[in-house]
C-alpha cells in the first residue's frame, strides 16, 4: 500500500514545503552571510529528498545552517567547513561529489563521451567522399550505361 502513497505528481517528490521558517541567527556581515548561503547550497539536507539545506525547514537543515554560520564566524575556510561536514556525514552531504574512484565515471564520463562522439563525427565526415565517389560501376551498371549511351534504354 505504501506504493500508493508515493507522491502523486511528477514534481511532488521534491517537496517538503510547509510553513516557511526564518533563520534568526543570520550573520551580520552581508559578505559572510552570502558566503554562508553559497556553502549551504552545496550541502545536502540529509533527511530530505534532494534538497540543499538552504531549501529545507527540517530541523537537521536548520542545525546544519547554524553550524555553517558558526564556523564562518569562527574564521574557518570553505574547505575546512566541507571537511568538517564530510567527516561527520560522509561524502553524501556534498551535492557536488568530490572526484575519487567512485565518481570517476561521473566526472570523466562526459569528457570520454565527447571524445568518442567527436571521433565518430570526424570519421563520418572524413570517410564519405572516398567511399561514395571512388566506387567503380558494377558490371550490371556498366551494361545499363552502355545501353543508355546506345540510345535503346527501353
Amino acid at each position: 500500500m505504501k506504493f500508493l502513497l508515493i507522491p502523486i505528481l511528477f514534481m511532488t517528490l521534491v517537496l517538503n514545503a510547509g510553513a516557511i521558517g526564518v533563520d534568526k541567527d543570520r550573520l551580520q556581515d552581508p559578505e559572510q552571510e552570502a558566503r554562508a548561503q553559497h556553502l549551504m547550497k552545496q550541502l545536502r539536507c540529509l533527511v530530505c529528498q534532494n534538497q540543499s539545506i538552504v531549501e529545507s525547514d527540517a530541523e537537521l537543515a536548520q542545525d546544519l545552517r547554524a553550524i555553517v554560520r558558526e564556523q564562518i564566524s569562527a574564521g574557518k575556510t570553505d574547505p575546512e567547513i566541507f571537511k568538517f561536514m564530510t567527516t561527520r556525514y560522509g561524502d553524501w552531504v556534498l551535492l557536488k561529489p568530490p572526484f575519487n574512484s567512485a565518481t570517476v565515471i561521473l566526472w570523466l564520463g562526459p569528457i570520454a563521451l565527447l571524445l568518442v562522439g567527436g571521433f565518430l563525427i570526424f570519421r563520418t565526415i572524413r570517410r564519405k567522399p572516398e567511399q561514395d565517389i571512388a566506387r567503380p560501376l558494377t558490371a550490371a551498371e556498366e551494361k545499363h550505361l552502355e545501353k543508355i549511351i546506345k540510345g535503346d534504354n527501353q
Partner: protein
Amino acid sequence: MIAELGHYFLVLALGLAVIQAIFPMIGAAQGSARMMMLGQPAAYGQFFFSLLAFLALTYSYLISDFSVAVIARNSHSLKPLLYKISGVWGNHEGSLLFWVMFLALFGAMVAYFGRGLPKSLRARVLSVQAMVGIGFYLFMLLTSNPFDRLADVPFEGNGLNPLLQDPGLVFHPPFLYLGYVGLSVVFSFAIAALIEGRVDPAWARWVRPWTLLAWVFLTIGIVLGSWWAYYELGWGGWWAWDPVENASFMPWLVATALLHSAIVVEKRDTLKSWTILLAIIAFSFSLLGTFIVRSGIITSVHAFATDPERGLYILVFLALVIGGSLLLFAIRSDKLQAGGLFAPISRESGLMINNLFLSVATAVVLYGTMHPLLSDAFFGVKSSVGAPFFNLVFSLLMIPLVVTMVYGPHLKWKRADIKGINQRLMAVTGIALLAGLMTFYATYGGAIMPAVWIGIGVWLLLSSLQELSNRIKLFQVPFKDSMSRLRRQPRSSWGMTLGHFGFAVGLLGIVGTSAWTIEAQKVMGLGEDMTIGDYRLTLKDVIPVAGPNYTAVRGIISVSPKNAEENGKSFMAYPETRTYVSSPITTTEGDVKTTMAGDLFVVIGESQGQGRWGIRAYYKPMQVWFWIGTTIVVLGGLISLSDRRYRIGTPQRQKASRKVKHAP
C-alpha cells in the same frame, strides 16, 4: 454502473488494440491489403473506447463517486471543479488511462492523416503503436485498474494534495504526457522503418511534425512545472535537478536532438540510423519518465519491494520495449544507406555537433541521476548528485552548444564558408564581447562565468536576428522588398529563428536569476521593515482569509524604494500561507512583483508569537526573461508546426493550401 462500463470499455479497447497490433503487421509482411486495411478501423475503435473509458472515470470524479478506490484516495467532495477534473490524471491509475487514451488518439490520427503514406509503412506504424498500447492496457487491467471498487464506501475522500491544487499543476502533467505520447508516434515510425529497412526524406517529413508536436508539448509541460515550483514552493527556485525533473528533461533533450537530426534526413538523406536510434531513445526516456518516476525507483530501490507486482511488470515491459527495439536496431540499421556528401564545415556538420552535445548532456543527466543508486549498489558509498554538480557541468557543456547555435543557422548545406560568416557576424560578435565585458566590470569581484554567459547569450540573441536579416536581405535591397521577403519566409524557418532567439532570451534569464539572486529574511512585528536590494518592505498588517477549501494568513506588506528620497512608486504585496481543510499540509502563496529587470518575491512564514511573523524575500534579476524566452520558443515550435510543407505529399495538400490562403 458507470465505473463498470468504463472497465468494460477498457477491455474492449484492449481487444481492438490486439487486432490493430497483429493483422496490419502480418498483412504488411504478406502484402495482403485486406489485412493491412484492418489497421484503420481498429485504431479508430480503440480510440473511441479508450475515450469512453476516460469519460467514465471523469464522470465518476465529477459526481465524487467514492466507491471507486482511486477517487476515494485522491478526491474530495469540496474540491473545486477544476481540481476534480485534473484529479482524473493526477494519480497513478488515472494518468495511465490518460496516457493510453492519447496513445490511441495519436494512433487514430496516423490512420486518418496517413492516407498518403505507403500502405505497408502505415500498417506497421499502426501495429507498433497498438503494441505499446497493449502494454499499457494490460498494466492497467492487471495491476492498476482505475475502476476498482471499494467494498466499504467511505463517506468522504482523502482529498488531493493541496500543493497540487494550483492551475500550473493542472496542466503540467497532461502536457508532459502529451509530449511523451507524441514521441510514441515517432518511435512507431522508427520501428516500422527498421522493419521495412527503408528511411528516406519522405519518412523524415512524416516524423518531423510529430517530433515537433511532442517537443512543443514537452517544453510546455516542463516550463509549467518550473513555473508552478517557482510560484508555489516559496523558495523562489524553479529548477532543482531533482530526479523527477531530470526524468522529464532527458526526453526533451533527446527530442531536441531528434528534431535537428531529422532535418538532416529530410534535406540531405543522411544521418538515418542515428536518427532512428534517437527516436528509440527518446521514447525509451518517455517510458522511463512515465513509469520509473511514479514507481519511485530513482529515489529508492525499495519502492519496488512494496509492490512487486507492478514493479515486475514495469521492468518486463521496459525491457521488452527498449531492449527489443534496440535489438531490432542492431540487426537492421545497416540496411539504412547513407546519402549525401558534405564538407567538414557545413550545415550537416553543425547539426551533428549539436547532436553530439545534446546527447552528452542527456548522458550527464542520466548518469548524474543514477549515480547515487549505482554508487550505493556497487561501491556501498552513499553519494549525492545535486544542483551544484549539474549546474557546473551544464554551464561548461552548453558553451560549445550555444556557439554551434550561433554558427549553425548561417552555415550552408554541403559546404559553408566560415570566414564569410565571421565577417557577417563581426558587429554582432563585437556587441556580445562588449556586453560580456560590461557585465564583468559591473560585477567586478564576483564570479566570471556569469559575465561569459551574458556575452554568449547576447551573441546568440543577435546572431539569430542577423541570420533573419541576411535571409531577407535587409538593407541590401530596398526596404519594401525586404519586407515582402520577410512575409514569404517559410514558417519552419520562422520556427528556427524564434526557437533560437527565444532560447537566447531564456538563457539570459537563467544567467541573471541564477547568478545574482539576493535573499533577505526577518522576523517582523507590525510596522517593522527590512530591506532587500533597492526595496524596503514594511509589514502593515496580517489578516486571516477564508478560501473555498482552505483558510489562510495574508500579510499586507508595503514595498517602497530603499531610500525614501528616491522617487519610485510604492506598491503592496500580499503573500499568503494556506492551511487546507482536507489535509494538514500548508502551502505558501508568495506574492511576486515582476519587472523586466527582476522579480521581487515575498513570502510570509509562520507566526513567531507575540504578533511577529517570519518574512522572507528574494530579488531575482531577469527571472521573467526565462518565462518570456520559453514562451517564444514554444511559439516558434507552433508556427513551424503549421508549415504547409508537412502536409505536402498527402491527400490533404489541396485542402491545406487553400486553408492557408484564406487565413488572414
